């Protein structure tokens, strides 16, 4: 019986390939769109996640997400350090600045200032030079994409000179980072250098990174920090999610993108439904005859399920394969760099495809189950 099911399915090569193509395309569309969205959202929080050493971020109560910087008083650092259960607390600067290159061109950069001594929050993956170089005054490290973006077509080399707000800075290290939501080049300097070169309104402390002592309950530590200092304290995850939610809710970018994804998913669902509904409808006469001859509903259902599983699985694998290939091919394009196909998306697409297939089968098989003799006997 399984053999019959397979022969019916593959008997018409063109239709069979059409079915597979439909499901492949639907899987590709959904997996690719949703992955890009998820990756883009994750970029929003990439700065937060890149500081792996810290447990808690402390900031002004008005800060709603990572790109928003509300300066605190310098003494807050000492207040936080004095909270019971804090192992260490270091300053962390983050803000936008303009650099001016030697040929006079300017360029926006994301400036990150890390604690001079501990270098907490510096990117761990070096491409050229040594991260400790930034402890020297007027020395910076830039990310590789930023470097290529700023000096296109030029070899990676140390010693380039730029100006930040009229302060001369030498680039003496190059590293590789996870791209962030704002695709400006990222420049790392020591916290002191950051204060020096930042514009006057930004010569303040934006974030404090806190490491909890071993065995501390983070939620209770957070509460103690807030109670004692009046500042906002968030775990790494909380701050990341708050940032992602903020971008989701407040900016137009995700709205456009959500529409695209929703369309992608709807089109994917529509193609799959249509494909399977057509498949059953086109074979309705065959199913009718089989039922008249003595196939039970269960037997027919089993045959259709087998056919659907084959088409669904083949199509899904091709679709996911193409999506993975897409990210592999585009992995060096700065806009998509570091983008991956999250397994959650793969599972989600799998479930969606199979749920949709199941629904369209149940929907279209009702006709077979309630077999109208007209289907069997009419010419």
């Amino acid at each position, binding site marked *: 019986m399984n053999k019959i099911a397979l022969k*019916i399915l593959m008997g*018409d090569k063109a239709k069979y390939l059409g079915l597979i193509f439909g499901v492949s395309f639907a899987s590709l569309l959904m997996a690719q769109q949703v992955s890009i969205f998820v990756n883009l959202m994750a970029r929003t929080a990439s700065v937060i996640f890149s500081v792996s050493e810290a447990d808690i971020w402390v900031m002004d109560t008005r800060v709603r997400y990572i790109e928003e910087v509300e300066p605190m008083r310098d003494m807050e650092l000492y207040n936080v350090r004095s909270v019971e259960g804090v192992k260490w607390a270091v300053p962390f600067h983050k803000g936008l600045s303009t650099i001016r290159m030697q040929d006079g061109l300017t360029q926006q950069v994301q400036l990150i200032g890390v604690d001079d001594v501990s270098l907490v929050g510096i990117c761990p993956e070096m491409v050229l030079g040594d991260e400790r170089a930034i402890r020297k005054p007027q020395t910076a490290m830039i990310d590789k994409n930023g470097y290529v973006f700023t000096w296109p077509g030029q070899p990676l080399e140390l010693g380039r000179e730029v100006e930040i707000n009229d302060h001369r800075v030498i680039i003496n290290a190059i590293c590789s980072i996870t791209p962030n939501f704002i695709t400006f080049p990222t420049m790392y300097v020591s916290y002191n250098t950051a204060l020096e070169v930042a514009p006057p309104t930004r010569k303040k402390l934006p974030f404090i990174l806190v490491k909890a002592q071993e065995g501390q309950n983070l939620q209770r530590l957070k509460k103690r920090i807030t109670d004692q200092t009046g500042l906002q304290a968030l775990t790494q995850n909380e701050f990341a999610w708050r940032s992602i939610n903020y971008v989701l809710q407040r900016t137009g970018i995700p709205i456009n993108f959500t529409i695209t994804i929703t369309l992608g998913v709807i089109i994917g669902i529509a193609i799959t439904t249509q494909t399977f509904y057509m498949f059953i409808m086109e074979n309705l006469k065959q199913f009718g005859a089989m039922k008249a*001859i*003595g196939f039970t509903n269960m037997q027919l259902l089993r045959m259709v399920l087998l056919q659907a599983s084959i088409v669904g699985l083949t199509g899904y694998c091709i679709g996911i394969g193409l999506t993975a290939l897409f990210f592999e091919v585009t992995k060096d394009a700065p806009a998509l760099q570091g983008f991956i196909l999250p397994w959650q998306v793969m599972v989600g697409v799998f479930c969606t495809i199979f749920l949709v297939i199941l629904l369209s089968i149940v929907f279209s098989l009702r006709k077979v189950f309630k*077999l109208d003799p007209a289907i069997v*006997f009419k*010419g």
Partner: protein
Amino acid sequence: MQQAVIFSNISKDFPLDGRKIRVLDNISSDIRLGEMTMLVGPSGCGKTTLISILSGILSTTEGRVDIMGAALTDMPDTKKVLFRRKNIGFIFQQYNLLPALSAAENAAIPLTAAGVSNKKALARARALLEGMGMEGQTEKLPRQLSGGQQQRVAIARSLVHNPKLIICDEPTAALDAKTGLQVMQILRDIANEKNRAVLVVTHDNRIFHFGDRILEMSDGRITGDYTTEDFLKKEHIE
């Protein structure tokens, strides 16, 4: 003579625009083993409806049907299917072969559905087909066969599981005159040789003479029950 089917007082209503229309109106008769019974009548008189009921594809509004001594009308739908695949063979106007399966595989389907092994089912189907002049054609796909050959495959399919009742709906309607007569001859032999009941629904007065008995229907009722001889005389058909 033994009866394969007995149906008594069956009526069938179809809902239409909120009303009910009566398509079969309190009809009773039987179908006998060893005979070919022709069911004739104008278009729309209820022939297809009647055979759908006799084969358990459609349920009755009233009345009862017994096939080979079993009360079909009392069975739940799932049981009807199993009963059908054991006791009834079908031949349709459009053959209704599965285009992706070979002639032999098509003919073997009732056995496959009943769980008989592929090898056994195919061997029996091939033997039947070859007995009907289909040597060398058993592995062809339906589209590689002529209409008459396809209908022979359908006949083999209706016989492969050795049912006692064969139901045919306009078996010659899609065939040319000569091929139609050949197919009817095969069906005729089936009825006589193996003591089966063959019920043939038809419009085609050129094949009436193959029957042993003719049931005439009109407007949802059986209006006449003749021997073929009497019927042909009545209708002035040679």
